[in-house]
């Protein structure tokens, strides 16, 4: 006892501070504070172990990981409603991991607790492949979700979000991906160069309408990477033209395409490339694209630079040389945007000040194969 008290007072003297005994604790579970525009989600493909898809939520300001979702087999990305009240995550499960009965669901999570709160079983036909943004969409009024199916027959599964049930399937032969904007409608890109519009009534019924041909798939195909811009979506052709499409009224209105690269830059082999190479900050009306120099089929190569365009003036305003080559980029939605970048083969994400282009921080050990970002719209 003498010894023990001796140690205690020696420590008091040594540390010069109070050596009160620590209180006994009980384990608890954290919940999230109110979201802010500098939060970002990123999906983990984990190509070696796709049964274990994940989504990570990070805070671009603090550089902290905030939480995670486990999202089944070969997940693309999650959706959320306009108030960020529910996260809707299209997920695929097999009863024996990689075999057995397949079940496709839309898992619903509470964005504050990250707990699964419900699920909606949908036809086991959801697109499976390298993550794309347009594998599913939620209507602008938060009423319906459309899930793109590929079996290889192409169709859309329509889900009533309000009543949390699957409604019906719409066959969409020759048309892929799905976008929402403006009115209660979804649009798809068709391989023949047209667009398909599905306007929904209150019951989710629809009479699909085909647009005129707006691109030639043999000469300058529209890519499957795109960026939302309010009620419009920006699409990109293989040669590097921007094709803005206004979907405010449901049917697409095709604006005049314009080139992102000069003739010299094209000759110099500058190209768009990566898994998520385009992102738009609506507050600043700026388009950010990930570019690299590469050959004809280098469209999945990592980008060394991000070029920034003023969408009103249709001119390039800035060129950011990245500290770390990237295959995916995303800007936040606020007036002082952060630019997130990731390389699908390297764990971790990087955060830049989008306006200055200066690297702010690296958030390490986020995802094995970070592939698609989706911004939080709080």
């Amino acid at each position, binding site marked *: 006892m003498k010894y023990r008290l001796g140690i205690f007072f020696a420590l008091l003297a040594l540390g010069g501070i109070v050596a009160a005994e620590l209180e006994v604790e009980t384990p608890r579970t954290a919940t999230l504070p109110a979201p802010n525009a500098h939060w970002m989600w990123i999906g983990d493909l984990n*190509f070696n172990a796709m*049964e274990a898809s994940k989504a990570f939520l990070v805070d671009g300001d603090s550089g902290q990981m905030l939480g995670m979702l486990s999202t089944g087999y*070969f997940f693309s990305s999650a959706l959320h409603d306009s108030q960020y009240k529910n996260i809707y995550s299209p997920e695929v499960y097999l009863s024996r991991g*990689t075999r057995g009965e397949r079940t496709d669901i839309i898992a619903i999570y509470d964005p504050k607790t990250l707990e699964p709160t419900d699920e909606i079983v949908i036809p086991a036909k959801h*697109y499976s492949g390298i993550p794309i943004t347009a594998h599913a969409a939620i209507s602008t009024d938060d009423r319906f979700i459309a899930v793109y199916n590929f079996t290889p027959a192409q169709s859309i599964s329509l889900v009533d979000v309000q009543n949390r049930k699957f409604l019906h399937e719409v066959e969409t032969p020759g048309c892929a991906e799905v976008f929402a904007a403006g009115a209660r409608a979804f649009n798809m890109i068709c391989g023949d160069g047209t667009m398909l519009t599905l306007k929904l009534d209150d019951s989710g019924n629809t009479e699909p309408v085909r647009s005129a041909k707006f691109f030639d798939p043999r000469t300058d195909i*529209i890519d499957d990477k795109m960026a939302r811009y309010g009620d419009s979506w920006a699409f990109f052709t293989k040669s590097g033209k921007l094709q803005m499409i206004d979907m405010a009224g449901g049917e697409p209105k095709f604006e005049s395409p314009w080139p992102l690269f000069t003739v010299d830059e094209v000759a110099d082999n500058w190209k768009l490339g990566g898994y998520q190479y385009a992102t738009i900050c609506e507050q600043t009306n700026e388009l950010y694209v990930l570019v690299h120099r590469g050959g004809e089929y280098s469209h999945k190569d990592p980008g060394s630079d991000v070029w920034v365009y003023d969408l009103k003036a249709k001119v390039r305003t800035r060129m950011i040389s990245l500290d770390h080559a990237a295959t995916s980029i995303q800007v936040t939605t606020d007036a002082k945007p952060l630019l997130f970048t990731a390389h699908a083969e390297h764990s971790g994400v990087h955060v830049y000040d989008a306006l200055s282009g200066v690297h702010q921080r690296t958030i390490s050990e986020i995802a094995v194969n970070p592939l698609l970002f989706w911004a939080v719209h709080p």
Partner: protein
Amino acid sequence: MGWFDNLSERSVRSVARRSARRSFLSRFGFALVGATTIPALPVARAASARMPAPDESGIAGDPGNPQSCDYWRYCSLDGFLCACCGGSQNSCPPGTEPSPVTWIGTCRNPEDGKDYVISYNDCCGKGGCGRCFCNTNEGDTPVHRPTLDNDINWCLGTKSNAYHCSTGIVIGVATEILR
């Protein structure tokens, strides 16, 4: 199934390689149909009967190492090479099932100079093999042109949707470069 490019240098190399080839092709055109009438010789068939070494295709007139991403058949591949996973360039590893629907590519055999249509049948029913990841992407198209899209998980119409690895199977001589 296909995935991303793990070689940044590849793109640099491919600029040169493909530029040369394009000019060759544009001079002679893409059609090599006439050549299909020349029959395969018995020597080719005999050779394919023995067990090939890992670094050879086991087929006469089919040069290269099927465990290497540089093997000519893999020009539009994106995934794990089945030849590294217990299968070969044209067979699935034990316990996996070839997908009946596939994406295709057009690859030039450097030995006979012909362009072949290659079917990249995915092998399905187990988790990812994890070996010999290869990403070449020649002719790869977006999701809305699925037939030539190597990003899609082609484990469709199989007992299980799970992707294990990819093969590269000769299904004919190309009459034109597919787009």
